[in-house]
């Protein structure tokens, strides 16, 4: 195992809800103990429920500031105004605040969703024509530095 791989593994473990981690594999022995958080105590009682309930992927935010455009309503997510058109935005595109980034169809009404910040689309988080809940993350966007 190369040092890069070890770093990757350590980063990976640190990004998880893990308190202690030990591994021995192919000549590697690694032990990792995270400091114990103190603040979260109150939330903890809810923990079993929350864990089971959470329907959003627990994506780990990297160092760079990421902003999410979320669904303003429940409905079906469309990346383009109609099936034959290209998507409003794709990864790597720069959008300005107010640009339409997708459509959410609800009750046969097409609702345009606008970017609420300017920046570069880092990731499109929902597949085209998929249902989305209220508040669901649709796009990860790296805001411009002002």
């Amino acid at each position, binding site marked *: 195992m190369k040092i890069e791989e070890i770093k990757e593994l350590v980063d990976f473990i640190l990004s998880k809800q893990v308190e202690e981690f030990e591994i021995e594999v192919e000549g590697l022995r690694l032990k990792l103990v995270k400091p114990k958080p103190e603040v979260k105590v109150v939330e903890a009682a*809810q923990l079993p*429920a929350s864990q089971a*309930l959470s329907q959003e992927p627990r994506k780990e935010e990297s160092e760079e500031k990421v902003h999410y455009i979320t669904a303003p309503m429940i409905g079906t997510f469309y990346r383009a105004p109609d099936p034959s058109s290209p998507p409003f935005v794709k990864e790597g595109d720069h959008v300005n605040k107010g640009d339409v980034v997708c459509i959410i169809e609800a*009750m046969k009404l097409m609702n345009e969703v606008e970017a609420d910040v300017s920046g570069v689309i880092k990731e499109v988080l929902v597949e085209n024509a998929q249902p989305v809940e*209220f508040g669901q993350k649709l796009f990860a966007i790296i805001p411009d530095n002002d």
Partner: protein
Amino acid sequence: MIKKLLIANRGEIALRIMASAKELGIKTVVVFSEADRDSMPVQLADEAYCIGPAKPQDSYLNMAAVMSAAEISGADAIHPGYGFLSENPRFAEIVEAEGLIFVGPSPQHIKLMGDKQRARRTMEELGVPVLPGSEGVVTRVGEARRIAEKIGYPIILKAVAGGGGRGMRIINSPAELEENFKTAQREAYLAFNSQDLYIEKYIERAHHVEVQIIGDGERVIAVGDRECSMQRRHQKIVEEAPSPFISQQTREKMLTTVERAAERLGLRSLVTFEFLVDEDENFYFIEANTRIQVEHPITEQVTGLDLVKEQILIASGEKLSFSREDVKPFGHAIEARINAEDPRSFAPSPGRIQFLFLPGGNGIRVDTAVFQGYEIPPFYDSMIAKLIAYGRNREEALHKLEVALHHTSIVGVKTNLPLLLSLLKSPQFRSGNYTTRFLEEEFIW
């Protein structure tokens, strides 16, 4: 048969409906607000969709969002529970227009019962006694005076668009009428955007007794009565089935009268007819609720029926699964509503439940969706659990409820448990003869 039922509600009633649906092999979908993400209904449903922020207007009252969730999930029916969209005829219409089943009466019936004056006239035409009063809207004080003289003081001025106890004014004399009529009109306009008033005889010492019916559109069965006089600001807190106040003769008369009228209307689903009963056991129709009631469990306990299951079956197009003769109420049931509120000031007490123990055992039924560690959100009703006690007679049910309340432990939020215990101990409650004024005006603790 319904295949997938969307439950457009939260809390204990969402779980209650879910249980009956699952029992029938129906898949369940719940919609939830951001405040309810960690709730039991969300955890226990087959599917759950967030439909908006915590405020009811933005989520549980947001028809478009509920309908979108129905579309996305492929639900073929919607159960509205109680409150929220349950008595909104427009919502029922939309549901049906989209080709889905609305678990409730027809939109026309919801609309009819929503217009208090029209409901009153219709019931009168169908032979159900209503309070003496004006034929329709009263616009001038002179007309009001003539009606008041005919029916006798005290009278009550009611806003046509009011309801649930709001927009009412009690008048004891011609002088008071003169003084209050215009003010009442103005108030009604400000509160409900309509100054229309009507007049009813006011009964000073009244019992609130209601009759539960279930209909399949053709046949209607009145399954029993409930005493709901224990209330504060028109919020019921303790209910009993059957009413300990009315005689068997009055009971039979009420049930038959309601059953006949409801059948002539062709009512479908669960509907509750609320009555005022005076001290001579004369009963007068006030209004009808076109939805499952909070207090439905006490009727279930004395009849052995599952009202929600019947309601879903009827919505699926089935006919009533039982006959009038199958309903043989036995024993007595009392429900106590446990609210997260200050027992003296009645100020809501949202917050986290730090310790919870709920009672069980012989004769005890608990309907709740809360758990230890649950954060009661401040956006909705303060009711967190219903304790229902069943006994072979009223005495037994009362004792069982009292012990059950003693064996209930809720730490972290204030609750009305001390009030409930005191109420149960009061001689007037024990006597079974208490009016709607008891809790607010007579009870001292």
